[in-house]
């Protein structure tokens, strides 16, 4: 009987539970971090009242969102309407399965890890599309239209910026990519591929709908974009998935360009977490500094700058490898 259950399945289920916990924990930390960083940039204390230095603020937020009325707009297709936040959240959890957190801390070591992540993060756009379409709201519709074209456009330079790393390492396996880099910063791919890193980072911002590319939910233009009508847990799931995708983007960036769990002296998950959070902090810092770009500018950046540069970078890399 015991043998009938494949060990893979057990690992996967435990892993899923663990990643879900990780996603939740990360979201809590990130919400707090974002608000605190924003506060300090604004020269104000940020959350301060709930718990010591406001540390329990995310829990209070969560409680508030859970307690809110679940509201479906009149005329909306309620099945699709509520499916959208779930579609948004589910792939995020899966992506964490293949991420090597440390030398011995990876749930599934698969040869297509990177492909899996790139594929599953692409599903998010479907959620945006459904949410915007079924909300029966013109702002949501416009937000969804922006979201779809933005995501589709930025997939290309994202892939093109990842390709050089794959050519350099010859594998899609995230663990192997990480171990291909040395322990010291100058042995990381960010040194050999700075352009690819910058393109990757910009694309990651765009893919995760972070400012200055937060057009699908551009507050001052489209009120809240695709999630205008969502309340309570529907909104919370979108919120959670946004932070989850941020973490995924930071994780992939850390693995591909910053050596993943490799670090000076002793390799381990601590290096990985530190790198991930540095990337996240930069994302937050950027958000609280810049205005939002315009929609056509966003696409112009992609088609006129990022894609040509990424292709150029790829060709140069191939040339160097060939030589």
């Amino acid at each position, binding site marked *: 009987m015991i043998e009938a259950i494949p060990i893979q399945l057990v690992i996967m289920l435990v892993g899923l539970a663990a990643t879900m916990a990780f996603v939740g924990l990360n979201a809590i930390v990130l919400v707090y971090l974002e608000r605190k*960083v924003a506060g*300090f*940039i*604004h*020269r*104000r*204390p940020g959350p*301060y009242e709930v718990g010591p230095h406001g540390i329990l603020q995310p829990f209070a937020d969560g409680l508030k969102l859970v307690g809110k009325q679940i509201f479906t707009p009149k005329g909306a297709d309620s099945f699709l309407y509520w499916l959208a936040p779930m579609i948004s959240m589910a792939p995020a959890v899966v992506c964490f399965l293949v991420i090597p957190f440390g030398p011995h801390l990876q749930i599934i070591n698969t040869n297509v890890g990177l492909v899996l992540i790139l594929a599953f993060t692409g599903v998010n756009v479907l959620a945006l599309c459904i949410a915007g379409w079924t909300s029966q709201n013109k702002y949501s519709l416009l937000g969804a239209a922006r979201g779809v074209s933005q995501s589709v456009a930025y997939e290309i330079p994202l892939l093109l910026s990842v390709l050089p790393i794959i050519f350099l390492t010859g594998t899609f396996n995230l663990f192997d990519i990480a171990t291909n880099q040395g322990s010291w910063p100058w042995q990381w791919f960010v040194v050999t591929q700075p352009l690819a890193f910058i393109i990757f980072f910009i694309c990651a911002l765009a893919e995760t709908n972070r400012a200055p590319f937060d057009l699908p939910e551009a507050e001052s233009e489209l009120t809240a974009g695709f999630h205008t009508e969502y309340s309570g847990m529907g909104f919370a799931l979108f919120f959670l998935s946004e932070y989850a995708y941020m973490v995924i983007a930071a994780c992939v960036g850390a693995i591909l360009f910053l050596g993943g769990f490799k670090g000076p002296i002793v390799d381990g998950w601590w290096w990985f977490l530190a790198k991930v959070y540095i990337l996240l902090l930069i994302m937050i*810092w*950027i958000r*609280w*500094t*810049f205005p939002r770009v315009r929609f056509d500018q966003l696409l112009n950046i992609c088609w006129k*700058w990022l894609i040509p540069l990424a292709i150029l970078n790829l060709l140069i890399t191939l040339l160097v490898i060939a030589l």
Partner: protein
Amino acid sequence: MIAKSIRENLQGMWSLLVGMKVTGKNFVQPNITVHYPRQTVASLEGYRGHVELVPHDKDPTKSKCIACSNCVRICPNSCITMKAVKPKKKAEDKEAAGDQSEGKKKAPAKKAKPELQSFILDYNYCSLCGQCAELCPTGALRFSSNVYLAGFTRQEFVIDLLARLQRQAQTKGAPNG
């Protein structure tokens, strides 16, 4: 043209870094917000709360008000209502009392001054223009500095200033500002 465009964009990228430097610098500098319940702002001088009656020099439970109702008439929002009774006679003096009775108020024996019964301010409608206090011939009105006035009903902001004055006089000899 391409070179120019590239240069422009590189400069643009540099400007973004400069912007991040500014926010980064602010990030490490101390807060400037006041943590309200634990700290309070110092700059309350000149703050105009609702108007209040100035106690009489001799008797802190009495007001300097002579019930001329200049303030009632000037108030743009008619938020002052005043009730006064005249002890005994002399009805014709009440018109003149409004203008220049600075010196006369110290001689209560001669003139039958109207006695202020109540001075009700509907703070809900007050626009704090200060004309009542400016127009008062005896300087019987001034602004309180009660910043922390809060209430749950509108009724709480309909204040009998005379009662408030008497209350203040009872609780403590000195006015609490």
